[in-house]
């Protein structure tokens, strides 16, 4: 009976999670079809080799430093996004929990508003804001006559990523802060703890589950993101997400795309594991 109750969830997990992953793993071992898709019956290790190695003009295998650089850049962007959103989300969440309950509800609602619009639309909104002669340039015109020229720079990527992922960091941190027993805060104050000690010794340790969750929720999708960096970075700096998207799209190399996606997954899991264990 118990098993039966769990069946729908199990079925969903298998259909939506396990099966696609297995399929992706399987595709990564197949021979590529130059016209798109794969040759279903023919297996090949080529995709996995191509993740890191290339053939040079003599037909020798050489390390593909480009893909290493892209992997590194992706990790950096994801890490930076995580750090920046955390630095913004923590004080915001602390401020929010200090508000009266009605205002807290309103603020919480405001935080979720961006989710009502598609990522792509929101990225384009940033393009309109940041482009030469856009709203940002108009606003700073009295000070910087030539405009800031922010669009298609790393700053634009950072802005867009921070904007896109901030709610994912803010919500779990806010929820874990709100769940802290107010008597513990009183106890800390009663035991002579100033603001700093209260934060470092009581609030942050108790909000740890939310902080870890927020970091995971930001880091993992940020590592695989490609829409925001592409639109705001102008496609000048490739990320893993772009690379994978390219393999399935224009480059028509599904096995390589699948292999890279698995590498991305493992990379994310490794970082998460290291983060949770500490």
């Amino acid at each position, binding site marked *: 009976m118990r098993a039966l109750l769990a069946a729908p969830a199990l079925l969903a997990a298998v259909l939506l999670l396990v099966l696609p992953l297995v399929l992706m793993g399987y595709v990564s071992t197949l021979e590529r079809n130059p016209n798109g898709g794969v040759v279903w019956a023919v297996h090949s290790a080529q995709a996995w080799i191509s993740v890191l190695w290339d053939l040079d003009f003599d037909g020798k295998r050489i390390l593909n430093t480009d893909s290493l650089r892209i992997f590194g850049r992706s990790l950096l962007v994801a890490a930076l996004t995580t750090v920046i959103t955390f630095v913004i989300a923590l004080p915001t969440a602390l401020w929010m929990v200090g508000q009266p309950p009605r205002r807290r509800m309103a603020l919480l609602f405001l935080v979720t508003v961006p989710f009502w619009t598609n990522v792509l639309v929101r990225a384009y909104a940033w393009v309109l804001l940041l482009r030469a002669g856009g709203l940002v340039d108009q606003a700073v015109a009295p000070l910087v006559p030539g405009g800031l020229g922010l669009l298609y720079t790393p700053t634009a990527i950072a802005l867009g990523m921070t904007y896109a992922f901030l709610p994912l960091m803010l919500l779990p941190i806010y929820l874990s802060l709100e769940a802290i027993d107010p008597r513990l805060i009183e106890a800390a104050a*009663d*035991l002579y703890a100033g603001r700093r000690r209260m934060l470092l010794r009581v609030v942050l340790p108790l909000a740890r589950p939310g902080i870890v969750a927020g970091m995971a929720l930001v880091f993992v999708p940020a590592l695989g993101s490609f829409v925001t960096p592409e639109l705001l970075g102008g496609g000048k700096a490739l990320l893993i997400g772009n690379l994978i998207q390219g393999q399935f799209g224009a480059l028509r190399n599904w096995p390589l795309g699948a292999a890279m996606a698995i590498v991305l997954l493992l990379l994310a899991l490794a970082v998460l594991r290291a983060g949770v264990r500490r």
Partner: protein
Amino acid sequence: MPDRSLAGAACARHDGGMPLLDVQALVKTYAGLRALDGVSVGVEQGQFFALLGPSGCGKTTLLRTIAGFVQPDSGTVLLEGAPLLHLPPERRPVNTVFQSYALFPHLTVAENVAFGLESLRLPRAEVAARVAEAVRLVRLEGMETRRPAALSGGQQQRVALARALAPRPKALLLDEPLSALDLVLRREMQLELKRLQRELGTAFIFVTHDQTEALGLADRIAVMRAGRIEQLGSPEEVYERPVNAYVAGFVGEANLVPATRVGALWRVATGACLAAEVGVPGPEAVLVLRPERASLADPRDQPLHGAVTLTEYDGAGTTVHVAGPLGTLRVRLPPGAARPVVGEAVGIVPDPGALRAVNA
């Protein structure tokens, strides 16, 4: 009403007129409701002071005002003569034992106990020494590295005590600290609190709704109702000379019989007149009779009488319920006394001086 004259006399005996804690005319209103309605009270050095009253009487609000978690609308609080109310909780040299302990779940026993000492930036060696001392004081040796979740309720209570005592507060505030414990443990912790208080000489201000606890532990009791202190005195004073029917009924068992003054006597509803100690100025009063300060007699010629409806034997004595024209009165018989039969007509004879006329 606050008994300022007695508090003043006690101070003069101790240290020349300055109580440890001096609360004056505190008022705190929550949404139009007066949680504190002009409370004034003094607590002496080394006193075990109980704030006694039913829930909602303002006793916890008073304690939290002293701790710094409640800002009163008006009034002052002096600690050793210095104003306290403008200081935030973290700068008040008092510590609290919270009702549900509020131990830090992510810290060990030793880390919990060390918390206040580290906040005060004491040298590491002194922190360690004081933690060891506090842990020994509450008899938790060997538990230092455990987390609160791995402790029983009684042990958590001891950690809360050690944590609040380690910084050596000028006064320890206890907010119904024993209410979460079962009866046996509660009894044990009461003795423990008494022992600790005697050993340390620290003033304990103890909030409770349990009159037995207050009578047994405290040197001085403030009985509160609806934001006011109804009576302030030693356990004996509060029990034996309650100022009104509310105090008499809340502190201990009491038979309460309305009466009117007739010359030197008091007339009850049956028309009978009784002699009573007078603790009331007006003509209307309530006569207080403690069940253990009366005995049973032949019903003839007794102004208080009725028929036995129930007898409760509990080993230490028997409580007899007597239903008569003045309602049901209770009489406590000592062990070994003959137990009356249900339905038997009995008279109730108050001990000499046991009846007391007080404000309704």
